[in-house]
């Protein structure tokens, strides 16, 4: 059971070797392959492998064996001296290194010795295609969750279906598609289960994808092939994948379309599409599509010109019920807006009246102060300068104690002399 991908069944606890997603903050998730090497010194860390974040350091040993979703406190890890130590070791002599490792080994024998640091915490989440999509290392433009969810829904990718994907790219769609078609691992070569047949043209991305499939325990569920699908089609050893769903995320989907026909497209059909005739003109045409089922296709293109070209070729090749849609997603941030005259002065607070009543009350207040002031000015024969001085000091003091209300008064007081002159 341990061979089941953590994407499909993460198990109750984090385990060594599994992929975990360390959630630092929203939009900041770090994928980590947990390593159980707490006995050894890794990269200069006596604790074994360590993740360093802005919230502190987290040795892998503190992340393993925890229930998924756990909040993990940072640990005190000597990050500062390790680089120096290595440099020193190089400079001084090789004899001391033996002593060093001994000392290190004694201090790291028990991972529980790791002390927590007050620097912060992370949450450790099981991998899902959604979190993976937001954290994966970009190799190409990524097919995001709103796109792939809708695509998989429309092409009817269900447990047990065979799905062709051309252009693995960064692998976000591959993971989501695998989850959609997964209905168990094939137990033998005859045991046919839902599978993703992924094709990638770029050799580096192909290698990376194959490595990822290995690391994520998706063998048997995803078949990655290095292939130029425009020219070489979708057959594997001249065997048909028997696909029921197709997703083309390639720059020119129309060039791949002739290979996805039930019968070999006639030269006149291809000519009307403006395409070259297929290389394979032999009689034994094998269609990569499943013979006895409806096949759904989706192509993903950023430009309208690509879309019109693709749609035209699709029509010529006999695809039905063609629809073009555009997906627009919006994320909504919920914030509490603090509006009101008596709000404490802090970030995000808006010190304006909350409603009409508050505005009227304040205006009345201002008005009465103004009148009071006016009256006092008229009654007492005070010299202008002292008054200015007085108000200024009062003003400053008030600012120190009650910031926000006095700010408004200050404006009033400064202006009042001018009005009086009128």
């Amino acid at each position, binding site marked *: 059971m341990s061979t089941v991908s953590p994407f499909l069944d993460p198990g109750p606890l984090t385990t060594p070797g599994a992929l975990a997603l360390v959630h630092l903050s929203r939009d900041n998730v770090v994928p980590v392959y947990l390593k159980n090497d707490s006995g050894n010194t890794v990269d200069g860390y006596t604790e074994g492998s360590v993740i360093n974040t802005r*919230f502190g350091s987290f040795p892998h040993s503190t992340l393993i064996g925890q229930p998924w979703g756990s909040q993990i406190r940072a640990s005190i890890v000597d990050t500062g001296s390790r680089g120096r130590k290595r440099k020193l070791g190089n400079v001084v002599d090789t004899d001391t290194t033996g002593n060093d490792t001994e000392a290190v080994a004694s201090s790291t024998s028990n991972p529980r010795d790791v002390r927590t640091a007050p620097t912060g915490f992370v949450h450790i989440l099981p991998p899902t295609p959604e979190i993976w999509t937001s954290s994966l290392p970009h190799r190409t433009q990524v097919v995001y969750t709103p796109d792939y969810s809708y695509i998989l829904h429309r092409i009817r990718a*269900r447990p047990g279906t065979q799905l062709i994907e051309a252009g693995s790219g960064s692998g976000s769609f591959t993971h989501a598609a695998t989850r959609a078609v*997964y*209905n168990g691992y094939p137990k033998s070569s005859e045991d046919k289960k839902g599978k993703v047949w992924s094709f990638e043209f770029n050799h580096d991305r192909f290698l990376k994808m194959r490595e990822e499939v290995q690391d994520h325990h998706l063998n048997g569920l995803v078949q990655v092939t290095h292939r130029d699908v425009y020219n070489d089609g979708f057959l594997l050893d001249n065997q048909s994948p028997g696909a029921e769903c197709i997703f083309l995320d390639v720059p020119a989907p129309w060039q791949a379309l002739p290979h996805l026909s039930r019968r070999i497209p006639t030269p006149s059909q291809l000519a009307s599409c403006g395409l070259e005739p297929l290389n394979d003109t032999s009689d034994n045409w094998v269609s990569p599509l499943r013979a006895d089922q409806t096949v759904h296709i989706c192509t993903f293109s950023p430009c309208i010109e690509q879309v019109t070209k693709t749609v035209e070729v699709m029509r*010529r090749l*006999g695809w039905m019920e063609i629809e073009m*849609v*555009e997906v*627009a*997603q919006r994320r909504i941030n919920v914030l509490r807006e603090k509006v009101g005259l008596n709000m404490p002065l802090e970030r995000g607070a808006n010190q304006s009246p909350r409603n009409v009543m508050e505005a009227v009350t304040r205006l009345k207040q201002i008005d009465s102060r103004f009148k009071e002031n006016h009256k006092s000015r008229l009654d007492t024969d005070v010299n202008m300068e002292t008054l200015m001085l007085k108000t200024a000091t009062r003003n400053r003091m008030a600012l120190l104690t009650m910031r926000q209300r006095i700010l408004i008064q200050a404006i009033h007081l400064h202006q009042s002399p001018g009005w009086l002159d009128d």
Partner: protein
Amino acid sequence: MHSLPSGNLRVLQVTPNTTISLGKYGSFPTNLIIERPYHLTYELLDKRPNETFNRLRVVPPAELYADIFSSDTTTTPTPEDATPAPDAEGADNALPTDIEYSLVDSDSGAVVAITDRAEIAASARQTLTLKEIEALKKDGIDAGRELIAKLMLSHTAIDQKTEYSLAKYKLLKTRKYIRRFSILPLDIPLLNHWTLEDKDPSKILDMREEMVALVGCWANVHFGGEDPCEAAQPAVKIKPEEAEAMEIGEEAAETVDTSVPGRWLVIDDTGGFLVAAMADRMGILYPPEADHTNTEDQQQHEAKPNHADSSSGNQPSSKEGEGAAESRTEKSEDIERKPEPEQGTKPSSPQTTRKRPRREDTIPYAHANTITHIHANAQPNLSFLRYYGFDVINPFHTPSHPLAKHLMALSWLQLLEPELDPTYSSAVPNAMPEEIYSWKTNRRSTFHRKRKRWLRTRHIIDTTREGGFTGLVVASTMDPISIMRACVPLLAGGAPIAIYSPTIEPLTELADCYSLPRRAAWASNLPEELLGKSASEQENFPGNEDFPVNPSLILGASIQTSRIRKWQVLPGRTHPLMTGRGGAEGYIFTAWRVRPAEGKVEARGNIRSRKARKVDVVESEGQGQSEIPNTK
């Protein structure tokens, strides 16, 4: 489901040896479409002189696209495009289509009169009277094409129309009079489309396709693994009662501790639509016959339960299909016809279930890949499942349906106060075997029924209250805060949560409960009543004025929406369609269930780095909270 040229959809069950009426378009015998692939476009042919029914003709794609191709040639007259290849497919039954071309004149590029300003009142310019049209319709031949041709010929202002309006006019008339239709499978996207467009969208809370897809993805709903008990057995065909007896199940659960079976909690006020959509994602929506045909929707919809519906004032279908048994035999023939490599992978074939001996301790529920549905009324309302051959009121009438084993329903009362449920709180009906044998058949069956019911109820309530669910999916009219309060403690750590709401207000309120300041306040000063309480007591915090729910149990609360816009893609006429439906926008709340560390958690930031400290000071001054750097 039928798709008519007018764009309307009708849901009906196709039963052999009957006739389907298409209303004004005519009718045809069902046997002509049974065992044919879906999505083909048929055309009603004229009755042959010595026959009493209309034959059908499959319309090849090249003919359906003829207009588009020909208009393409007028705009870009390239030599390749001038010769579309309609003869490549279906040449044997293709009818000559040149009538249309000679009328429209578009293939020769002879469409004249390009004036946009001329006000064209189509109705005033039509010289054919209603009577004449009716007469043409009656004896109309050639699937209404002749009628359309006549209509266009007798339109006096046809030469004043622009190319675009001509195309529109023809489309309009074609939709009205051409006798074409296609048969589509009633799968989730189509059911959704039909309910939104033709039925009552409020019934499914205006849930659009993209929302259903998004909710399913964010809740990580997928095939949740085989039943651990079943998987443990080497033989493919095992007797379900042995595998599922509860005591065995418990033993097996101990052995497979590296795996968590997928169990999803679904709160559904959409009449079962959400449950059906999630079941589709988990591969348990279609009966096992469908499973044998590799879960594709090729044939099983002909076994749609007795339901005929008409949309937008169309005539109700002539058939209230009562021949479920007949269509069943139809399907089994179909399976035999198709060589199928994966027959027998599902242990629960109908035969074994039917042969199941009476054994009282059988729990007829799977332990993995299950949906638990909590309903607000005494009985669950999951009526949409009827379209997929599952009767939720009497699930054991359809024992072969995967949902019978994989769908459990309980009420909120049973979840929160099970002691008030009469079945749960009563003692188990028990009797000695000798005693049972002495009873009359009547009484015996009552006893067994009661005992089974008790066991079922007990199993559902106990397993649900135990928690450990792998995900929560909600589309409910109830306040999401109250749902979260009850459901979050039942989720396993790291379990995703996805809540759909047609309006955003309930979700903003919910998101506010998990907002950054609130989480920070919770971390720095726990409510007094929880001081010194255990983690589980904190999880089941009933809420107070400041904290409606325990905010530390949830991570990454966010709200999103997604909307698709359809485009028309025609040569030279590509633009967004302006006919999108209105209705509620729909929003989704997503989050993960997490397990807070016990005790106080400090988060001062990394004090080693001077830069980080600075940032930290600013933040703690601003908010006076300890948790700030992390929860932002």
